[in-house]
């Protein structure tokens, strides 16, 4: 039996509600959460407070962001007394979700607020230790769902480092000035260039298998062999060697790009960073814009942002996510876009959608189906799309496109059933059509069953349509490297080229159905019942089977480092996380640091 837990009122303190309910709680040093733990009945124990992903460099507790001309430095200096949840200390620059929320914020800010920054150095402000990975006590004491969500988010954040380099030319350099263990080395692996101090003691290591009985699951194994192309037998040695690999050998084995004596370390880091910055195409002489703050209003069954909202129906474990277009299309050229900055609709919308997805992932684990809707004038979105794709090479527009790309990817790896409802009043144009194509199914409303009578409102213009734009033909690739249309029509690539002929045309349900753009075109008589049935059916299935099924169907076609990380590494990791050898009472992850040696079931499965 599924255990749907309704949040008690006091448990629903997010931001606005938080303030309303607890006006005396100081916000400058947030109270830590209780980690969601496995309760004896197996039901989900909820956080006493929702997790927010909004922060600002002024509030960072764990990272120090400094900018010197074209080079930014992100120095990890974890405050061990400021974990996001209770019950553990963040020793030795180990991280938890709170540390990574700040990292994500910094990566985004550097892209939008600092167009002049061409290279980012990730370093440690602590002597001798770069980063010792995810905090083990935190992992060992949290439940499966939280572990998976945490790993997924940290994986996405590492991917965003690579995306910043690939799509924005903001290159990342990792200055490993002390030991980088586990997730610490995996963070380094996500950067373009790794410099290791050669002092006969600093090492890079992936000790998860021998020490913790789990995997280096934040891309470590994948990036070792697929990105750095470390020989598989050497990778086998590296992934079982607790003490890690130092200096010359780390270089010889391709684990790092350069080794430098301690006395020359900072000058070398500076030199390489300057070189990377010089090779960056990012503009030197424009001003950044401030990153939008999505500012949600949070109610028991709704989360509301200016352009995005989620309305939760707990009985069907469904959230209806509605993205709204603005009243008018706003800026028409790069100058006015820059002037609008965080309030330019595509940017404001995506920041809100991204925040909402994260919020739902962490705070509404039982809400398994997302119904994706849009509201607004298609013509307005059409016009915004034209502006966006005309000026796609502008640095700021490029950043917005990148954020849209990664947000759509985040939606697809959220372990939720995604159903697009192309109904009356919707505006699935270009980028928003891409939201529909990200879904497992697309339902589109036709006119009445005779096919001639217009909808009840009487205006044929209200007949829902889909419009394709350049958004659907290249820039917004999925994790598998294909566009959603290419993935959709894997059997018939020519069909995708044919669809390009429909660019900016309003495609109605009948035509969309013929073109294979929707799953079902339904008339008004059938609509409500069909939608109710699919929602109820979805809610009755095993959530685990659905997550697994959807993940297998969504990412057809070629493999990339990213699909391997989410599809293979994470899947294996999530299996390992469930096994007694890791998380049983005597499992390696649970017993680490207690002084009790793990005891294993020696069955190979």
């Amino acid at each position, binding site marked *: 039996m599924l255990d749907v837990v309704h949040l008690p009122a006091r448990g629903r303190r997010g931001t606005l509600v938080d303030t309303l309910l607890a006006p005396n709680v100081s916000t400058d040093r947030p109270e830590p959460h209780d980690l969601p733990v496995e309760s004896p009945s197996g039901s989900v124990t909820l956080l006493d407070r929702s997790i927010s992903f909004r922060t600002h460099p002024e509030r960072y507790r764990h990272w120090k962001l400094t900018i010197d001309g074209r080079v930014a430095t992100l120095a990890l200096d974890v405050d061990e007394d400021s974990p996001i949840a209770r019950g553990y200390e963040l020793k030795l620059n180990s991280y938890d979700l709170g540390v990574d929320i700040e990292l994500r914020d910094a990566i985004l800010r550097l892209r939008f607020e600092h167009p002049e920054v061409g290279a980012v150095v990730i370093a440690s402000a602590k002597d001798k230790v770069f980063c010792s990975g995810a905090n083990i006590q935190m992992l060992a004491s949290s439940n499966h769902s939280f572990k998976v969500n945490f790993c997924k988010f940290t994986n996405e954040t590492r991917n965003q480092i690579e995306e910043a380099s690939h799509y924005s030319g903001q290159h990342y350099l990792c200055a490993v000035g002390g030991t980088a263990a586990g997730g610490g080395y995996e963070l380094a692996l996500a950067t373009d260039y790794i410099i290791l101090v050669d*002092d006969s*003691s600093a090492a890079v290591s992936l000790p998860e298998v*021998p020490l913790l009985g789990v995997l280096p699951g934040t891309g470590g194994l994948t990036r070792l062999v697929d990105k750095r192309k470390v020989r598989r037998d050497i990778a086998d040695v590296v992934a079982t060697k607790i003490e890690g690999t130092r200096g010359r050998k780390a270089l010889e084995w391709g684990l790092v790009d350069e080794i430098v*004596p301690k*006395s020359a370390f900072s000058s070398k880091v500076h030199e390489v960073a300057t070189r990377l910055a010089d090779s960056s195409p990012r503009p030197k002489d424009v001003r950044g814009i401030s990153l939008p703050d999505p500012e949600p209003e949070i109610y028991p069954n709704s989360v509301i942002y200016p352009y995005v909202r989620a309305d939760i129906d707990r009985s069907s474990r469904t959230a209806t996510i509605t993205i709204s277009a603005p009243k008018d299309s706003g800026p028409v050229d790069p100058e006015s876009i820059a002037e609008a900055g965080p309030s330019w609709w595509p940017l404001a919308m995506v920041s809100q959608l991204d925040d909402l997805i994260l919020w739902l992932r962490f705070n509404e684990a039982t809400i398994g189906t997302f119904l994706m809707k849009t509201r607004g004038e298609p013509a307005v979105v059409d016009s915004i799309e034209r502006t966006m794709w005309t000026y796609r090479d502008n640095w700021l527009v490029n950043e917005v496109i990148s954020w849209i790309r990664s947000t759509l990817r985040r939606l697809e790896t959220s372990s939720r059933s995604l159903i697009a409802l192309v109904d009356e009043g919707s505006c699935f144009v270009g980028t928003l059509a891409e939201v529909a194509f990200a879904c497992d199914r697309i339902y589109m409303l036709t006119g009445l069953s005779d096919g001639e009578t217009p909808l009840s409102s009487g205006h044929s213009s209200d007949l829902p349509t889909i419009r394709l734009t350049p958004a659907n033909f290249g820039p917004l690739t999925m994790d598998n490297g294909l566009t959603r249309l290419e993935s959709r029509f894997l059997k018939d690539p020519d069909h995708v080229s044919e669809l390009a002929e429909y660019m900016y045309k309003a495609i109605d349900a009948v035509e969309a159905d013929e073109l294979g753009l929707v799953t079902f075109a339904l008339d008004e008589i059938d609509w409500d019942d069909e939608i109710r049935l699919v929602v109820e059916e979805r809610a009755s299935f095993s959530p685990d089977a659905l997550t697994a099924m959807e993940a297998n169907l969504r990412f057809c076609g070629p493999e990339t480092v990213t699909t391997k990380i989410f599809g293979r590494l994470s899947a294996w990791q999530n299996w390992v996380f469930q096994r007694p050898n890791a998380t049983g009472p005597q499992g390696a992850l649970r017993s680490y640091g*207690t*002084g*009790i040696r793990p005891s294993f079931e020696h069955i190979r499965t």
Partner: protein
Amino acid sequence: MKVDYAAKIPNNVNLAEDRQLTRALESWQPKYLAWWNQLGPKDFANNEVFLRTAVDVGQEGWANFGYVTMPEYRWGIFLAEPKPDRRISFGEHIGQPVWNEVPGEYRFDLRRLIAVQGDTEPASVEQQRHLGKTAPSLYDLRNLFQVNVEEGRHLWAMVYLLHRYFGKDGREEADALLERHSGDPDRPRLLGAFNEPTPDWLSFYLFTYFTDRDGKFQLHALTESAFDPLARTTQFMLKEEAHHMFVGATGVARVIQRTAELMKEHDTDDIRQYGGINLSIIQKYLNFHYSITLDLFGGDTSSNAANYYASGLKGRYHESERQDDHRLLNSTYKAEAVTDGHIDSIEVPTITALNQILQDDFIADCQNGVDRWNRILSEAGITTKLYLPHRGFNRQVGIFADYHITPEGVICSDEEWELKKSEWLPTPDDRSFVASLMVPVREPGKMASWLAPPATGIANKPIDYIYVKL
């Protein structure tokens, strides 16, 4: 080049017949000598020194005295005699026979323990390499060199374990012990205190008193190890370590003795103009060395220490004499902690508090020495007493590292710390004053102005014996 290592290297580990070991040492020994010549005691390579050499582990064998030049010293490899049917005395393998080979699952942890211990041995030789120039007597010069060659032998002991039991990785680790150097900005030694300079003889005595005493406690904890070769090696090392602490304890005592004499003679606390070291300066040096040595014990609560204990790799000081279950899974320990701005004690699982427990034993042992020093003062009619500062004072590692704590154990502000620091820790002026006293005394039996003579000589020789032929 074929070298008869068995003759050159006194040992009781059947070196001549162990091909693997011979091969490893053939490559390592020249590197060791090169290191000794480059970073060992400066300038005295050709002087004969009256040194003790261990040639066997028995009563007769371990203390053979004679003149030898240091590069010719016969660094040996000795394990204490095995105890028949020795059993593991703690942790989850308690009661099982001890191991004579490294179990695969503990390979990394054991290697790490040995490498960290091994790293400290050559470090102190490097730290002390300039002291020969300013030795306050021939007797002290000889003691310095004795300490140095024995630290070198302790390095050999650790390298033997790495070579004999840890294969290729062990050989690499052994090489790394010679690649890191004390205070080297590029490749520093692993532990903080071993990168601090030992610039003068007062520092040397305090170093050998406090820092070598940390060594004593670490070695004691390792003598309990389920890995028998490590247990037996460290047992033998403890005999030599005892001499180093003797040098420290008597060295400080002789400084205090001289200070007391000068204070009485001139009826003043400030005896600097008479060539002595004020008690206040001694206290500041003591504070410094004691506090950086406390850092060597590692984090106050430590999952590594817990793992080492549970696995049987590293026990507690005098493990077998303790009356408990030697598993420590359900017991708690009152550990000091900082709560709400003051120092308090909290209950923690004993097994995670092992570093602190070892530190507690160390502190009690240190206090004995301080008490003896204070007796010298009271016998001289001086009411001032030396003391150990609070364990949280001047710490860089562990729970106190984030706070400024006075020697009395009160948390104080940054401002207060800055204001009072010069009363608690040696100032540049103190250091340069002590440095000004460091003029070599090389006439047999004579002592520097700031130092009383020892009570007796070495190995029944008189105090004015020619301990080093210059």
